[in-house]
């Protein structure tokens, strides 16, 4: 067979494989936020408007929103005004395609800083996993959509990224040869050691993660999941993680945003 025929055959196989995957997202009435899989004390902590540690970051984000930065000497508030009005519902639409690239909320904030404030993007300090300031702003913006259903777009410009995300979600990775679907679709609610497996939604992120004593983004959680499957974790902000985040956000559409949630 000629090389082109082989290539065409291989592409057909791959396409067939993709089409053969059932769209196994939980039915809307079966959707369960991560809050349904944590203990009552943790749920109470998340609902506590004072003691929820994630609110520390939301508060800092509110202060950063008003802080001028960069060569323009402008703050977020100078362009966007009051976040409660301007950012209402915005967090629920991310990740989304901006200028041909798929960006999640924190990347969009950094892009705004670079392009409109002429400020340096927030990067993580050397010993930290993520930038505290960026997490704070992300938490603050996300919190303005609290209670609103996740509603990401997966058609139009987002379609190729959505397909990539779906492909990655069903791809087996790591020494343990695990795909996201194997735990979060097939075994949600079952026990993995002493913890119940959740459905793996991102409506609570950025969330206060008890094992890390701090706020974490969904992609940092993806890294941890990869490490546990003994797969090579990608960098936070990698295109593949953006695509997975888009797919997982689509998968949990109609779940209310709970950020900042408290998770294990």
């Amino acid at each position, binding site marked *: 067979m000629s090389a082109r025929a082989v290539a065409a055959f291989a592409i057909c196989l791959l396409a067939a494989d993709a089409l053969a995957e059932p769209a196994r997202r939980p039915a809307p009435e079966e959707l369960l936020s991560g809050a349904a899989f*944590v*203990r009552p*004390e943790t749920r109470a*902590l998340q609902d506590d408007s004072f003691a929820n540690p994630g609110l520390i970051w939301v508060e800092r984000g509110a202060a950063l929103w008003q802080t001028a930065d960069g060569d323009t000497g402008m703050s977020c508030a100078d362009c966007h005004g009051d976040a409660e009005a301007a950012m209402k519902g915005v967090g629920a639409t991310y990740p989304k395609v901006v200028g041909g690239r798929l960006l999640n909320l924190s990347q969009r904030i950094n892009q705004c800083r670079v392009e409109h404030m002429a400020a340096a993007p927030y990067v993580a300090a050397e010993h930290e996993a993520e930038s505290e300031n960026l997490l704070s702003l992300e938490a603050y913006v996300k919190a303005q959509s609290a209670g609103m259903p996740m509603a990401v777009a997966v058609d139009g410009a987002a379609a190729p990224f959505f397909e990539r995300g779906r492909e990655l979600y069903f791809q087996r990775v790591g020494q343990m040869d695990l795909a996201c679907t194997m735990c979060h679709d097939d075994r949600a609610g079952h026990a993995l050691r*002493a913890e119940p497996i959740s459905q793996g939604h991102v409506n609570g992120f950025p969330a206060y993660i*008890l*094992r890390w004593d701090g706020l974490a983004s969904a992609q940092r959680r993806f890294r*941890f*999941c990869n490490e546990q499957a003994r797969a090579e974790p990608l960098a936070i902000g990698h295109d593949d993680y953006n695509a997975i985040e888009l797919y997982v956000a689509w998968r949990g559409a109609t779940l209310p945003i709970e950020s900042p949630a408290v998770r*294990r």
Partner: protein
Amino acid sequence: MAEKSDKPTTGALSRRRLLAGAAAGGAALALGRAARADDYDFSGNPFRDRFQTFRQTFRVEPNRQEAERIVRAIIRGRTPIPGVVTVIAPDIAENGAAVPVTIKIDSPMTADDYPELVHLIALENPFPEIAKYRFTPACGVAEVTLRCRMRTSAPLVVVAEMSTGAVGVTERFVEVTLGACS
């Protein structure tokens, strides 16, 4: 470096040595009054606690016998009064990094009778003493809520020392499980 050195080496700790020596000699008269629990630092070796050496490489392990000795030393032979202390903690903790605990002490909270010093101890922590709370009658009700760390499933012991000299002790076992992905 020995993990449990009994030699306080800095000047600030020589008082501890003096008290220990006086107690061993059968007379705790260095202060002019009977020694109380808060004269001692039960958090373990304070040198190990506070002055980390630059390249400390040993791992601090819990010692159940040492933790129980600490509890006995705080109680100091007094007979605990039952029912005075209530400890509310989950049966199974979500994560050992943040175990929510509420301590309530039944006390009239008068100038003569109030919980002067309340200890919270986890018997399987590398540093068993978690916190000490000093109430005054102005608190109205002796109750605290906190989040503590527990390394493994263990009893949480609360010892409440009253201003009258009485003591109340309560224990509650909290399971700390190994998480799914840890």
